[in-house]
């Protein structure tokens, strides 16, 4: 009765590239990407909120672009590069990435439920628009819901990270912690 796998007669084998690792998953077609990430791959950093694309808690990168993992079936993600919040910290030491540190430094989270989505939204956006102004950042974070912070500190965190990355590039530093 409590078959949460959703596996019926039409289970299918799919291959997913998540954070650079290739996974083979047997799953039902109706399984969304976020459910496969969380339940099959046990990558529970990506959260599930509204399940209809409004809240953004499930935001991951698909081929580098922020996407709603609840609005995609896992089978549709085959052949794409999926990047989740687990990719941001150092895999060996657990040391936080620069964007995560900026969220911490600027109090860009309170309860933290929405944070993985905001981090991946910002990560994808800043990669495409490293010169983004604070106004553009404000516009982009409207994509996700945060019921705690009031957004000011999230905007400040993302802006601070973007500014630091620009300074780092200007200084010609090869070593980058920007993932």
């Amino acid at each position: 009765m409590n078959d949460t796998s959703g596996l019926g007669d039409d289970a299918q084998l799919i291959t997913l590239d998540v954070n650079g690792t290739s996974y083979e998953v047997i799953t039902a077609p109706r399984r969304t990407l976020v459910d496969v990430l969380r339940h099959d791959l046990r990558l529970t950093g990506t959260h599930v909120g509204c399940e209809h694309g409004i809240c953004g808690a499930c935001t991951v990168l698909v081929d580098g672009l922020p996407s709603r993992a609840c609005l995609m079936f896992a089978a549709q993600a085959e052949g794409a590069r999926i990047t989740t919040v687990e990719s941001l910290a150092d895999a060996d030491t657990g040391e936080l990435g620069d964007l995560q540190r900026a969220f911490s430094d600027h109090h860009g989270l309170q309860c933290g439920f929405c944070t993985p989505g905001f981090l991946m939204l910002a990560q994808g956006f800043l990669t495409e628009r490293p010169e983004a102004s604070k106004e553009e950042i404000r516009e982009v974070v409207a994509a996700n819901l945060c019921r705690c912070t009031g957004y000011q500190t999230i905007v400040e965190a993302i802006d601070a990270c973007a500014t630091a990355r620009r300074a780092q590039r200007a200084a010609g530093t090869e070593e980058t912690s920007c993932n």
Partner: protein
Amino acid sequence: MKPAPFRYHRARDVEGATALLAELGDDAKVIAGGQSLVAMMNFRLARPAHLVDIGGLRELDHLGVGADGELRIGALTTHHTVETASPRELGAGFDVIRDAMAWIGHLPIRTRGTVGGSMAHGDATAEWCLLAVLLDAEFVARGPRGQRRIPAREFFFGYYTTALDPDEILVEIVFPRPAPHAALTEFAERRGDFAIVSAAVDLDTDGRTVNSGRVALGGVAAMPVRVPEAEAVLAAGGSFRDCAEAAADAVDPPGDANGSAHYRKHLIRTLVERACEEAMSR
């Protein structure tokens, strides 16, 4: 919620997809970016028995200006690809299309949602549907009986209903002529929400005098509509204010939880005038 079970089919080419749709019949739905369909399936407002995924058909992901100056957009081109297209790709006179993208949902929706998907979904408030009606777009559809072109005026039938046959796939959308003095604007309670009312205009002008123009509205009927009464005001040399007033008088918008008919008419007056001014200032 979670979607009801279905069978998943991945199309290798357009012909294969349409053959499959013909075979599966009414129980099948095409999925492209899925930004409307998956949400509807998660709510179980849609329960297709089969999904035919055309997302891998790269030949439908293209954007460019043809020899006659028409803009051709492949059905699988995402909103984000259009909003980040270079001036060379998009061609002169299609800025109205690029600028309209900012009104579509939010960035993570625009990176997956497709032009063809939005058109085939046929939401009465969708920006793409409004642009198609305003700019007399043509829809290139392919099915088991071959390819045909459908003008925008004959494409949208009503709420979420289009002229596409169940076994046809939209492959390309053609915008036949540049619209250098055109603009789209809308109002929603929150940025990124579905528009309560949207307005778009396309002016024929030398930058000083308006000779004629087209006016289209979304959110006031079962599909986007052109408003000949408002266009007549422009052709007669009337003011933008009078044009907007004529548009509000001409339509009979629905009233619902998002706004009464009276409120929608108020929005039409404001938005049509605003769109005219934006179009003029381009």
